[in-house]
């Protein structure tokens, strides 16, 4: 368990945004996730972005599926309505919510199991529909809440907590999103606040479907091949028992690196990944190019971060179906019900 610290009295000198709110007004409840799990940074980035954009918290709805990641909306934006739906089906709930009220911000948080397995169909179709929302995946390559099975985004040939190889092709959600017509597609690392905050800010401002794939290693179930000495004892302990009994507290991994550079990150279990931050030389406006960059860096064993694809033509589902500019949930009886007069017309048609 970890939490974003929250002193009980408001500090009068805290900086305020245009709405006169402080960051504190965007906070959430105590987290019940594992200490050291990157979601704290992700949550802070969300808080920061909303604060920066002066989004009134009650004008944002946060939705999620089921999983550790899907619990995170409890840990930010206390004053927003939240909806922890069913496993993998957040996109359809978000679609309905958005249809009902086009004037709110919609923020969906999901996991890689939630999105890439049971929810893959809904994920692909919400993209196609250009729903105006920001969809975040806390991508940890595993099923955290059900204790460490492989997810479909797990790298081929990486090992699970039981030391088995993952034999299957990994699903690249960012590539999928681009392929299926998402308007804004980015990738980042949970501990990279410097990158996350501007990404979130841009994505929340985007009209249409925005997707951020956030690499967020699971501190508990990422027990990869090579490990640093310090953890060995505890992994051995758990391995001997055949189940996870002891989860030592870990520090969250935070990183900083420049655009255009690569950075090797060592994960809690000792394994490593190389992140590469895109810079201005990347042209994010061509689908073909963006897909190419994704595929090629992947072949190089690197993970690109940054805005990978951007469709300048912002448009969303409401434009497509040409719905009333007024939120549908505000329409009143006389906007909606044609009354007895309407029935005269109808009845006549059936005579």
């Amino acid at each position, binding site marked *: 368990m970890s939490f974003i610290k929250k002193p009980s009295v408001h500090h009068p000198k805290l900086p305020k945004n245009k709405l006169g709110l402080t960051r504190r007004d965007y906070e959430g409840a105590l987290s019940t996730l594992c200490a050291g799990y990157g979601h704290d940074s992700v949550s802070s980035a969300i808080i920061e972005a909303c604060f920066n954009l002066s989004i009134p*918290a009650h004008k944002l709805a946060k939705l999620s599926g089921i999983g550790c990641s899907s619990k995170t909306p409890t840990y930010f934006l206390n004053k927003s309505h939240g909806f922890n739906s069913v496993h993998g089906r957040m996109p359809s709930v978000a679609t309905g919510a958005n*249809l009902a009220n086009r004037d709110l911000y919609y923020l969906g948080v999901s996991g890689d199991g939630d999105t890439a397995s049971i929810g893959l169909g809904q994920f*692909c179709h919400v993209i196609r529909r250009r729903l105006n929302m920001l969809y975040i995946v806390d991508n940890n390559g595993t099923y955290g809440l059900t204790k460490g099975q492989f997810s479909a985004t797990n790298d081929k040939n990486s090992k699970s907590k039981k030391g088995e190889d993952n034999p299957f092709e990994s699903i690249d959600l960012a590539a999928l999103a681009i392929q299926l017509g998402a308007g804004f597609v980015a990738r980042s690392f949970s501990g990279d606040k410097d990158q996350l905050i501007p990404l979130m800010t841009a994505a929340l401002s985007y009209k249409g479907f925005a997707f951020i794939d956030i690499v967020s290693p699971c501190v508990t179930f990422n027990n990869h091949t090579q490990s640093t000495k310090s953890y060995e004892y505890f992994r051995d302990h758990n391995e001997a028992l055949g189940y996870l009994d002891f989860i030592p507290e870990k520090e969250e991994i935070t990183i900083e690196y420049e655009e255009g550079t690569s950075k090797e990150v060592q994960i809690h279990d000792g394994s490593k990944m190389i992140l590469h931050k895109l810079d201005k030389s990347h042209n994010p406006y061509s689908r073909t190019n963006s897909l190419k960059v994704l595929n090629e860096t992947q072949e190089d064993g690197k993970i690109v971060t940054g805005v990978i694809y951007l469709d300048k033509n912002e448009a969303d589902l409401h434009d497509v179906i040409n*719905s009333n500019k007024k939120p549908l*949930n505000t329409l009143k009886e006389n906007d909606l019900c044609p009354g007895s007069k309407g029935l005269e017309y109808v009845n006549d048609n*059936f005579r």
Partner: protein
Amino acid sequence: MTKVNDFVVKFANVNGSGSASANLMFAKSIFRMGIPVTPKNIFPSNIQGLPTWFEVRISKDGYAARREGIDCFITLNPQTYQTDMKEILSGGYLIYDNTMPRNFSRKDINYIGIPMASICADHYDDPRQRQLFKNIVCLGALAVLVKIDLKIIENLIKEDFEKKPKLIPPNIKALHLGRDYALENLDRNLNISLKKIRTTKKKILIQGNEAAGLGCVYGGATVAGWYPITPSTSLVEAFQKYVNIFRVNDSGEVSAGIVQAEDEMASVGMAIGANWNGARAFTATSGPGISLMSEFLGLAYFAEIPLVLFNIQRGGPSTGMPTRTQQSDILSCAYASHGDTKHVLLFPSDPKECFEMAAQSFDLAEILQTPIIVMSDLDIGMNDWVTDPLHWDDDNKFQRGKVLKKKDLDDLVNWGRYLDVDGDGIPYRTLPGAHETKGSYFTRGTSHDAFAGYTEDGRINADNMMRITKKFKKSLKFLPKSIRKKAKKDTSVGLIYFGSTSVAVDEANDILEDQGYAVDLLRIRSFPFGRGISTFIDDHEHVIVMEQNRDAQMRSLLINELNKNGSNIYSILNFDGSPVTADFIVKSFLDLLKKNQFNIKSLKKKNQQRE
């Protein structure tokens, strides 16, 4: 003796051959002659080339159920005529295309040959037109034979093709070709015939899905997520149609969001998301969709989100008989989803009630904060029924239930999303965006306390579950009541029914009454069951439940939920996919009587007379 305004005509065709519109015109023209008519479209689960039938019952007395025994069978499908023929009543008519010779075996029926193909060959060049107009030629001849006012059909043609006026003359020409052939060549002294009356003068002829789709517009639905599936698709199409008629503003913007989803889980998810966010939203489906929606139904039940779901039932289980009718999802809807769940069901019995219940269901969903499942079926949904005109009381106001607005929240101190403040089990909800600082909460399918907080304390969760039970019980006062019809004299036998079987039960009851049997009737209109139903069962020594499924699902639900003794609750079951007939009910009733030796005190006239 000639049967006037009281007979059955059936058409056998091949689907995709253009027969559907011609057959419908036949039915509609009779309706316009003021005569009650009940058409049933029996179509295959395929697009082109398979057998399809169209059955039209004409009944001056207004009996709207199917009736077996065909008076006049227009057999235009060579694949099926040998078996079709068997359905014709002795002395009845078989009308066929005698362009090619055919073999007929029955001696007790009359054969009327009309050279439809050759007439068309003579008058049209395009082979497709030849094919299409056969149906109209046939209609023209038939109109002469059974004495339909041809003007009416001509008007129908003009109306149908109003927007494509160039199609009118060739159709009318075909109609006249048929008429002329009949006038010149056929014996017109049939023992069936039509005569204008005024019975349907004020009525309308409409399909249940059309009426339900319209009802959604009247009920204020603004969001629909849906996935195509027979026989529910036309409900959403109707909603779309009436939205386009009634809900487009001057800028061309539409006051509704209708999305064809990728599957049924997504459609119900959308409807739930929209309702959660304060729009009235629905979805419509049939059998397989119900199964797929059951996870989400449990969420809506437990998180207490309003939802309207139309189940246009078809033949199950599995993909089953997609184009046939059944009432076989009673249990799977009443108890949909794992865990302890129960859902409110409405049972419309005709298109008019589809309209009314559709509109009402949105009030109920918001008042009760739970899914409302409207249990229609293919028979009501996709067949045309004669009903009273639809009616709307302009004083009706949407009842949006307990939703806290900004100013309510301003004053509120200790709000809890799942607190039972009023003692009716119904808590207060808030909508996203309502208030800057108050009323936000986390909606979840996991166990929660009265303040919507996650809890693993099983007792708190159990309390919450008991409150939902209470809400369910209290829902009775909002639901449509069952309708009881007393027999003309006292009786120990009661018959319970619902939905599309109602018309057959009414007719069967008349027949039984004529034969001296007295039966009290009760029509169920909603679940949970009210006290009226319980009393009805208690009031009768023998209760029969009529339903269209194999497993007597409604009977089960009654016994279960009302704690009744099943040993004197009998079933009449029809589950071959065809709407039940009055004759079947009468026969089954008499069989039950014989087999179970009902204590027929005051049941049969004769007995009473003896007393």
